[in-house]
């Protein structure tokens, strides 16, 4: 009985949890509520994945109203994959978030915003309605702006403001695109849009709609030239908020982009002629090289990681641009793996900031001597960012290289490897400073991070290694998701 309502329970758990957390007005109670709500979400997401694998696509009618009149939640191999990722990362982040919080009177609000953000991200992932996706996009965005503004530096305020401006422009572009689609097809349900697009003769409005939607979502996912908001937002946000944002927020935007590119616009013949694939390859390549190179020159480790995120997003969008089963599998697998490794990395740096009060690389020399587990997790995550064999990053880049070979773009494979060498530079710099330098004052005074920070961090780092050795489970999920995306396109 309850199983039929899984898709909506998934959203309700964090949404109601957010209300309760806000009402509780008490830091510890709010944390407990957040933990329970995110544990429920993680459970529901796994149950949902299991059901999708057993029964295929699940369509859930909200309030019993059929699509066209009502909103449909539609879960296939793609959403189930994303939802599980969000569920698990959100749960681990909540464990981590017990310590890295703020002034007492703000703690309850902090957890409220975290839960709202999770609810919004899950909502984007499960909904089959284009406008509903916008509403959830704004729920997650507004809570994200608040989370960033809670950072302890005053520059957090400016970062939040800038993200608010850019994010709102992005969301509005998305709504313009959806509005045009609605004018063309008369429906907001993605499935029905696809059905009716076939009958559309002139593709002009469709191309405009696609342009607006791609640019709008591109702003949200920090696609290369639209990425300027991201480094400051990640660097000044509170540590646990940075973990959540870095591992889930941009990933959900990428999912939405994939959904529109493949499921919606892939269904129409004419739009396929717009050279979006080659544009996306170009932008992805630029993202893989330029922000990665910028990461090498950052002193703040959070900023290094933020710039590296931009580069890694490039690999994921490259997978989308390749649009063959192997390449797309690689892209989606990298989305999954990157969420886990970046989560571990941001948790490690959060723990270091908690113990030393700084994330500046030059003040953290030798921190590996006093915080070996934390530094170890950071190192594992760094190796995975490079794509060293034995870490999950290697597997997904391997798929990407195979995918580019399959597409007949051998030079792309070379560029993937070449850009990984830039990651060697910025990760190598961090590893050298934290392990091999004489401990500085900050490092000598620090002690190992507390258990509730170490636990989720080491789980993520462990999983990063495990999925590097045995990638069957995530690769199977990613490949099923890729086939689901491409299957509709054909």
């Amino acid at each position, binding site marked *: 009985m309850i199983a039929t309502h899984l898709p909506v329970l998934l959203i309700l758990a964090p949404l109601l949890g957010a209300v309760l957390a806000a009402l509780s007005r008490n830091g510890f109670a709010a944390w407990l509520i957040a933990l329970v709500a995110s544990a429920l979400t993680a459970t529901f997401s796994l149950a949902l994945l299991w059901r999708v694998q057993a029964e295929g696509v699940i369509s859930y009618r909200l309030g019993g109203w059929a699509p066209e009149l009502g909103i449909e939640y539609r879960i296939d191999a793609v959403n189930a994959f994303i939802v599980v990722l969000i569920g698990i990362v959100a749960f681990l982040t909540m464990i981590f978030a017990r310590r890295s919080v703020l002034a007492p009177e703000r703690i309850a609000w902090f957890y409220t915003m975290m839960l709202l953000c999770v609810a919004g991200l899950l909502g984007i992932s499960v909904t089959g309605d284009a*406008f509903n996706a916008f509403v959830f996009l704004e729920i997650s965005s507004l809570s994200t702006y608040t989370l960033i503004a809670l950072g*302890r*530096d*005053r*520059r957090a*305020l400016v970062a939040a403001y800038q993200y608010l401006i850019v994010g709102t*422009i992005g969301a509005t572009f998305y709504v313009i695109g959806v*509005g045009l689609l609605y*004018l063309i097809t008369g429906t907001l349900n993605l499935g029905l849009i696809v059905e009716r697009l076939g009958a559309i003769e002139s593709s002009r409005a469709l191309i405009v709609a696609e342009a607006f939607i791609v640019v709008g979502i591109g702003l949200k996912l920090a696609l290369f030239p639209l990425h300027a908001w991201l480094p400051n937002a990640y660097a000044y946000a509170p540590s646990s908020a940075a973990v959540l944002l870095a591992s889930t927020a941009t990933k959900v935007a990428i999912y939405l982009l994939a959904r529109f590119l493949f499921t919606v616009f892939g269904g129409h013949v004419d739009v396929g002629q717009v050279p979006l694939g080659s544009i996306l390859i170009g932008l992805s390549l630029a993202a893989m090289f330029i922000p990665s190179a910028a990461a090498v020159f950052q002193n703040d480790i959070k900023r290094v990681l933020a710039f590296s995120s931009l580069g890694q997003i490039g690999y994921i969008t490259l997978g989308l641009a390749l649009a063959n089963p192997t390449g797309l599998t690689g892209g989606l697998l990298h989305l999954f793996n990157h969420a886990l490794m970046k989560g571990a990395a941001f948790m490690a740096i959060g723990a270091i*900031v908690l113990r030393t009060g700084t994330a500046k690389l030059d003040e953290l020399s030798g921190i590996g001597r006093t915080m070996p587990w934390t530094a170890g997790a950071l190192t594992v995550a760094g190796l995975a960012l490079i794509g060293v064999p034995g870490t999950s990053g290697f597997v997904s880049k391997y798929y990407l290289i195979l995918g580019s070979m399959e597409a007949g773009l051998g030079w792309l494979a070379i560029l993937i490897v070449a850009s990984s060498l830039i990651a060697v530079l910025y990760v190598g710099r961090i590893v050298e400073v934290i392990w091999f330098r004489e401990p500085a004052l900050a490092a000598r005074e620090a002690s190992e991070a507390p258990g509730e920070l170490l636990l989720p961090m080491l789980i993520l780092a462990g999983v990063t290694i495990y999925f590097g050795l045995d990638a069957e489970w995530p690769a199977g999920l990613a490949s099923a998701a890729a086939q689901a995306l491409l299957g509709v396109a054909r």
Partner: protein
Amino acid sequence: MIAHFSQIATVFLMVAGLYVVIARGNLIKKLIGLSLFQTSVYLLYILPGKVLGGTAPILDAGYSVYANPLPHVLILTAIVVGIATLALGLTLVVRIKEAYGTIEEDEIFAKDGPRAKVDPKVSKASVSPLNKTGRGGKSA
């Protein structure tokens, strides 16, 4: 002609709003531009929903021609989102004004060089209790 006029008005508002966001350095003016930009989208949705000679969507045997109600509902939602965004944006501007003493973008960037001092007022407001040795903590 009327249909074209409404489209031109929509696009003009859209572009004007976006231009204000990009061209102005004042944080409040940017938000005004953003609101203008969002408002143009309300028009984009609502105008095509109007049926000439149609009534409001009332379920009654007396009326057969009525305007499409769905865009109105959608835009009602979008308006709520817009208000929330504007409210949050203005709140951030208030906090920025408290922290920096200005709402001009270039002055804010000038104050926050890599070695800019942390304003005591901000660190009191936003410093984390856990951050015992951090810079923000010291100045509090």
